[in-house]
């Protein structure tokens, strides 16, 4: 009975396995244009919760719905302004108005896209050797602990410009975070000089894109005020000629623009003001909210990163050198380099990995590893296991 079952079941299996071997071989081994296994780019095996586009050139957070809302709002409002208000204003006042509006609009979109698409300053996770080295250092510092006992939070203290700063250990990335770095729980990455995670921009705001974010909100506040002012001007000029209600009937888009601008101005101008304060005192949103450098914490508490001078702080934040991305998204994964520890894995796993982990049993859906099929014994025993389940 079992023998028949084996025979009856093995023959079709062998056939479909033979087919699978063929396709497996031809796709990865002997065809001239794919002589070796497909090499992945680093973004495809990136451990954080980010989305990548354009083959790794664009990097965003996982949730991007609000970002599209931002883009739509800006495009629609500006589009309506250029289509309905600008012709009147250009002919009756000056053509400089649409010109300046155009420049502002391009600047706003440029800064938004730059802030959204660039790497905010993500710190790559530790390689296994680095993680082991740090563990050893911590163990020698803390003393050995029994199994099952979680040691106290790992911190290192460092003296920066006379102020004691605690460096915390990140359990996900297995590194001691540099000062001012923080782990974003939404993106599951440690980010240098972490400011905040902005859903409107669809990305974290950190060291590498803070200036783009700031210029975005600054130019957006100018654009919003600009549109608001000139739409009001347009409606007033029209109502001087034809009356208020007919003016509104002639350009209905103006009403929508005024409403959008009115509600946006408060938040955006407020945010710009807040970030201007942060830049001038060289603090991050994170530090300000926690009150890290507030004098309320202690008499000798001051910000060790501030240059002391308002102008220097602003210039350093906006015109300082732009550091490069540390994660090398478009680089190729070297087969012999150790991959960093990944907590959320499986998204980038290539099929051969899955195959090797399934070598002990054969599932009909999976592409079967050809070397595992060389011996019929393994096939029959595996199938027996499958049947017995």
């Amino acid at each position, binding site marked *: 009975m079992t023998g028949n079952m084996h025979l009856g079941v093995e023959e079709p299996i062998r056939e479909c396995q033979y087919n699978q071997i063929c396709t497996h071989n031809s796709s990865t081994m002997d065809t001239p244009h794919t002589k070796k296994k497909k090499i992945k780019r680093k973004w495809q095996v990136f451990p954080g919760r980010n989305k990548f586009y354009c083959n790794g050139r664009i990097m965003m957070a996982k949730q991007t719905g609000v970002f599209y809302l931002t883009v739509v709002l800006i495009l629609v409002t500006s589009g309506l302004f250029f289509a309905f208000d600008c012709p009147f204003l250009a002919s009756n006042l000056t053509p400089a108005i649409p010109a300046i509006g155009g420049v502002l609009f*391009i*600047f706003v979109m*440029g*800064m938004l896209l*730059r802030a959204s698409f660039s790497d905010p300053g993500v*710190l*790559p996770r*530790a*390689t296994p*050797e*680095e993680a082991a*080295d740090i563990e050893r250092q911590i163990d020698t510092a803390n003393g050995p602990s029994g199994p099952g006992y979680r040691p106290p939070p790992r911190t290192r203290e*460092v*003296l*920066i*410009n006379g102020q004691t*700063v605690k*460096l915390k250990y990140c359990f996900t990335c297995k*590194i001691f975070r*540099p*000062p*001012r770095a923080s782990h974003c729980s939404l993106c599951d990455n440690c980010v*240098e*000089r972490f400011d905040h995670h902005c859903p409107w921009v669809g990305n974290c705001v950190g060291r590498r894109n803070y200036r*783009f974010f700031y*210029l975005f909100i600054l130019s957006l506040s100018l654009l919003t005020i600009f549109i608001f002012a000139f739409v009001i001007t347009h409606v007033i000029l029209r109502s001087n000629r034809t009356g208020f209600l007919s003016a509104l009937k002639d350009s209905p888009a103006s009403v929508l623009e005024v409403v959008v601008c009115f509600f946006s101005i408060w938040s955006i101008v407020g945010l710009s003001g807040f970030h201007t304060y942060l830049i001038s005192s060289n603090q991050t949103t994170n530090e300000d909210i926690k009150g890290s450098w507030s004098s309320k914490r202690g008499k000798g508490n001051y910000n*060790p*990163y501030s240059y002391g001078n308002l102008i*220097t702080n602003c*210039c*350093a934040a*906006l*015109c*300082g*050198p*732009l*550091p*490069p991305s*540390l*994660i*090398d998204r478009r680089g190729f994964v070297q087969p012999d380099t150790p991959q960093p520890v990944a907590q959320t894995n499986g998204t980038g796993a290539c099929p051969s990995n899955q195959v090797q982990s399934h070598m002990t049993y054969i599932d009909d859906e999976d592409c079967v590893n050809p070397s595992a099929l060389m011996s019929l014994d393994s096939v029959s025993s595996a199938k027996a296991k499958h049947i017995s389940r």
Partner: protein
Amino acid sequence: MSSAPRTATERTKLPYCHESFHNLQELRHSASLANKVFIQRDYTDGTVCKFQTKFPSELDSRIERTLFEDTVKTLNNYYAEAEKIGGQSYLEGCLACLTVYLIFLCIETRYEKVLKKISRYIQEQNEKVYAPRGLLITDPIERGMRVIEISVYEDRGSSASSSGSSTTSSSGR
């Protein structure tokens, strides 16, 4: 020509740079990795990129303290140059801002230029100083600028030098 050099110190005196490059290749493929030493960042000056110059005890028998400290200090100087806030960086920043940062599609940032200098320096240091001593420095950019990773290769002693001498003798002629 006299017999090919047998010891590492003799090999470093060779005039050909491709001889030491052979050492680097040998090191990677024939010697076995014994240990990795990590030089951590020094945050006492803030968030600028600077590495600790403290000499690690694992390298005590492998390299002279002064050579190691020179390497780290030169790297620190390079990074300081890259992150320096001054006239040139302001000019670059303002120009970039005016062009909506599209100018970086055409030209390299100063930081990227200095990083290239750093990688050339590390390559040169590996060839001239570290590989003959069985050590290899990994560029910090490949480790997220967190550490300078120094790979310590097992000193094979006479077997390495004999295989080395055969390759050098064949290439030297």
